[in-house]
Structure formats: structure tokens, C-alpha cells
């Protein structure tokens, strides 16, 4: 798969996560969904679930578009910092 396609998938993941965070249409469930483990109302348990989803999303992003650099890529002349060139 070309990098552009893989990166497009990454952008799609970000968009889905953004939509899931701004899911205002679910706010009506806040007082309807039973407490999770007897102490987590929906407004709280939703983000417990969201945290695990974020973990899966980051794992996917790493697999899709986060390659390790080739060993020789850091060879070559260093600069002393852009503001001093």
C-alpha cells in the first residue's frame, strides 16, 4: 500500500476519533444508560471506553504509517542550529 493511502487512512482514524469526541447526539443518554460498575455514569464511562479506543487507534496508526528510520539516515554534517547559520 502506498504511503499516501496509508496516511489517508490515518486521517480517517483521526476524523472518526474527533467525531466520537464531539458526539453531542449521544448526550441524551447521560441519564438513561445504567451506571457502569455501579459508579460510572455514561458521561464518564464513555471516555473510559474512548481511552481504550484511543489506544487501539494509536496502535493502528503506528502499524500503518510510523516506520522506523533507516540506520544510515542520521549520517552527515550537523548544524549548530538554524538561528546561528
Amino acid at each position, binding site marked *: *500500500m*502506498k*504511503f499516501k493511502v496509508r496516511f489517508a487512512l490515518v486521517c480517517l482514524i*483521526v476524523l472518526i*476519533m*474527533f467525531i466520537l*469526541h*464531539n458526539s*453531542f447526539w449521544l*448526550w*441524551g443518554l*447521560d*441519564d438513561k444508560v445504567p*451506571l457502569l*460498575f*455501579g*459508579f*460510572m*455514569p*455514561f*458521561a*464518564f464511562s*464513555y*471516555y*473510559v471506553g*474512548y*481511552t481504550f*479506543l*484511543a*489506544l487501539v*487507534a*494509536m*496502535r493502528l*496508526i*503506528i502499524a500503518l*504509517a*510510523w*516506520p*522506523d*528510520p*533507516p540506520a544510515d*539516515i*542520521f549520517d*552527515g554534517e*550537523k*548544524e*549548530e*542550529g*538554524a*538561528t*546561528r*547559520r
Partner: protein
Amino acid sequence: MTATISIVLIALYFSVLIGIGIHGARVSLKTREDYFLAGRGLGSLAIFMALFASNITAFTIIGHAGFSYEVGYGAYGYVIGWSIFITPFTYYLVGYRSWLLGKRYGYATQPQVFGGIFNSKFVGLLFLILLLYYTVPYLVVSIIGGSLAFSTITDGAVPYWLASIIIIGISLVYTIPAGLRGTVWTDVFQGILFLIVAVLLLGAVAQALGGFSAITEQIVERNPAMLQRELSETIAPINWFSFSFINSIAVIVFPQMFTRILAARQSTNLKRVSLYYPLAMAGIFGVSTLLGVWGSVAIPGLSGMDSDNIVPMLIHQFLSPAWMIMGLVVILAVVKSSIDSQLLSITHLVTDDFLPWFKRIRSDRAVFWGRILLIVFAIIAYFIALVRPAAILSIAAFAFSGFSIILPVMIGGLYWPRANKYGACAALIFPAVMLHLWYLEILPGWTTFGFMPVFPSFVLATATLVVVSLLTEPPSQEQQEKTFGIFNRVFKYDDQASG
């Protein structure tokens, strides 16, 4: 008895920090890269705890609990929800590419990375000015918050001025000799301490209030509004949406966070940090949210600034005095881990990117200047924290927004070869001016269309970068190759192999 235990515990805590400073000084080399970047050799745990501890402030446990007391369970998603995903994502989006350039060209700060990408000293200078402008007030506010908490929790036995001296002084004890290595090692110690005590505290408060289920049932019966996000004006959808552009995306722009990313030993370390980070942040803010909401039925009737004291009040009213000592140590840990990293970052920026405008500084002399400047900035920050000038406090109020609107230029420089120095300069200056006009209420409120000022400023920064870059001369092929040649080799390796 309690006083003796307090003194012993606090003395033990300070001894560990001082020990770390002394040991860090022994193993540190006297070079610029070793002092400010720990020799670019930080492993996964060190970098994770450094990012976590530096990003946790007094707000996390004190301010956020107070906010949850007022707003309810919705405070959790509002403040940290988007951050749980997007902050580690920015470690990939911006952090990894910056780290590649840092390793290849020796860049150590944002002015160097983005001055280098845009081949412009002026872009580097703008980054320097803006980062200092927003970080110094943020540092002062951290000192004020920590000192107030220290003084409050000791019932005034340690006055505010002395609390500030203690907090700054102890931070300097390990930061001056050991540089970034000293702050990171103490971050590991303080971060673990903080996580453990926070979880224990939650359990102890829950037990004192009758158990997790019992206290939640009381909330459902006596204050059901705490469960419903729709009932809170503060977290209304338009604010909820706008806030996505403040807290979460600003983190990678903080110089203390950016520098720590550059100090990673390998790409794998950054990947691991991106996976650990959501769990840790969700955990710590979860504790803070629950304590705040539980406080709303355990100690009802607080409002305004009083609600910010809900955690100390819960401890004071429901737990033994020993917990107050633990609370004090945690507050010190939280406050100092952000103050030391901010102080070091400011010093790093000035040593590496400001002094060389006037005088060439050798690598070993940079360490000397760094140490001197640490002391100078600590003294300046102390006196500002004593005086508490209104101007500094008002800048700090929108510092997060200021950091956020720098992000489009960082992303543009790392992803769009056509982005040029003219676009970058315009996109750094124009939105920053607009942000001030909105926050200082010089422009009427309706001009933000109901959003918080950060959102239109962010859109303006993006649009300005694109439009001005397209209207002006593109970067030279050589300049583009210097940055994107590296990215193409790393990210498009498979494409080239298959093509």
C-alpha cells in the same frame, strides 16, 4: 507526632531529589547536547514519565477537581477527552518528524527545527519570541498556584513567599547540576509517586464516603444534574468543540514537551510513549473528576474559587492528618515537575537561540551560561510571582490558545513542501495579534461567531500560511530536499521499493 512524620516525609522526599541531582551531575557530560537534551539518549520510561509529569500541573488535581465539582462528570470529557487521543497523535504527527530532523541536523529547539525548515533566521526568532512570551507567564502562574496550595495545605505555617522559595529552590538543586537528565530522573520518581498516591487517595476517599456505589447513588438522588452534560452551560457543545483546539493540541508546542521528544533515543521510544500516554492521562484526570463530583454531595454549597479547594477539604474532613502530608508531597511533586521543565526550557531557548545572536558560544560554555541563566530566570520568576502583575496573569490565561495557534505553521513546515518563510511569518504574527484583540475584548465578541477565540485564530493561522505561501516564491528545490528528502526516505521507503 504528625508534625514529626510530616517533617521526616518531606525531608526524605527532598533528599531523594537532591540525591538525584548530585548523581545526575556526576554522569552528565559538560556539553550542550548532554545538558539540555540528555545526550538524546532517553528511553521509553524516562521520556514517558518526563512528558507525563511535565504536563501534569496543580490544575490536574486541584483545578480540575474544582471544575468537576461545578460541572459534573462531563468535565472529564470536556477537559481531557480529545486530549487522550490527539496529544499522543501529535507526538507522531509533529514529534516524530521533528525528531528525525533533530537527529539528522543536530536541532535541539523549535526555533532551530523550524528556522531550519524554512531556511529563515527570522522564523526562528519569531518562534523564540512567541514561545518565551507564552511560557514565562505560564511558569509564573505555576509557581503562584503551587505556592498558594503549599501555603493553604500547611494552614499558613509556610507563608506564600517562603513556599515559592522552597519550590523554586528545590527545583534548582537538581536542575542546575544535572540539566535535563536531572529533571527527567526526578520526573520518573515524582510521576510514579503521584500516580500511586492519587489512586490510593481515591480509594481512601471512596471508603470514607461509604464506597464507590453508595456515593454515586447519593449523587443520582441529590444532584442528578451532575450526570447530564446537556444541563451545563459551561460545557455547551460550541464550547466543547472550541476547547478541542486549546488544551489537547497545544501540548506538543510547549517547548518543554517538544525538547523531551527530541531527546528520545529511538523511534521505538516515541511509539511506546504514544501508547502509554492515553492510559496515564485518562487515569489521573479520572481520579480528579471523581473526587470533584463526589465532593459536590459530600461538601455541598461551595462556589467560585472555594470549589477549587475541594480536594484538600475532602482530605481534611474525611481522612486522617497523614493524608494531608501525602497531599502536600503530591502537590509539591506536581508543581515542581512542571516548573523545573519550564525553567530549563526557557534557559535552553535563550542559551541556544538568543545569546548566539550576540556572541558565538562553545558547547562547554553553553552549559556554564545555561546554569547562570537558570538562576537568573528563577529569581525573575520568583519576584514576578510575588508581585503578581495583572498583565502577566492575563497573558497566562490565554497562553494555551497562543501555543495552539503556532501548530499550523509546525504542521505546514513538516508536511507541505510549498510552505515558505513568508507564509510562516505571516501565520505566526497575524493570528497571534487577532487572538490578543479577541481575548483583550478590543474586538467585539460576535466576531468569533460564538466560538472561543482560539478556533477562528487557528483557522486564520492555517489560511494565512496557505494563502501567503502560494502568493510568494516557493522554497528552493535544495531547501525542500533538505527536509523532505529525509521524510521521503523514511516514510516512502516501501513505495520506492515497490515502484
